[in-house]
């Protein structure tokens, strides 16, 4: 599934034109992106949390040359699925069997 399929769903369910639906889906993701860019976490009840984590710098090694290098501190994004989402995915899996 891609963004185009989400746009199609919005078009069918809410009744906006495809062009408007595309703009709105774009708005949702661009808000999500700029919020995360600011380091703020996003909590979607029943779905999960997107959290920006800080990683301290650490010593690493280039596996090819064996040379020691410093891996700089950085910020990464993690997604923690909610229990509700995890259960939903596993329930379907069981029913299918």
């Amino acid at each position, binding site marked *: 599934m891609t963004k185009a399929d989400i746009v199609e769903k919005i078009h069918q369910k809410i009744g906006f034109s495809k062009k408007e639906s595309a703009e709105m889906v774009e*708005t949702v*993701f661009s808000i999500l992106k700029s919020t995360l860019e600011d380091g703020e976490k996003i909590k979607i009840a029943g779905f*999960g949390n997107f959290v920006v984590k800080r990683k301290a710098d650490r010593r690493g090694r280039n596996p090819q040359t064996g040379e020691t290098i410093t891996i700089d501190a950085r910020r990464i994004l993690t997604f923690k699925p909610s229990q509700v989402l*995890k259960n939903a*995915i596993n329930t*379907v899996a069981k029913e299918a069997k």
Partner: protein
Amino acid sequence: MTKSELIEKVVQTHGMLNMKVSEALVNTVFDSIEDALKTGDKVEIRGFGSFTIRERSGREARNPKSGEVVRIPAKKTPFFKTGKELKERVNC
């Protein structure tokens, strides 16, 4: 930011929406991702990231209190991989 704050922000950004429609929009976005994952489909949002299902195999574990061996069955878990653009933006 919570889901309701996101719904409000969408209304502020996109003048032509009211709260009710914005709520339906945001819910539909996350519901469609969930529905796709339920059927085992992967979801790819360019510039944001992709959601896939990872299989966790069953294993034997121990109840730390009683020391009793318990079987943990195989299960599926949703996994999110941050897209290239977002990864770079978060790390700035």
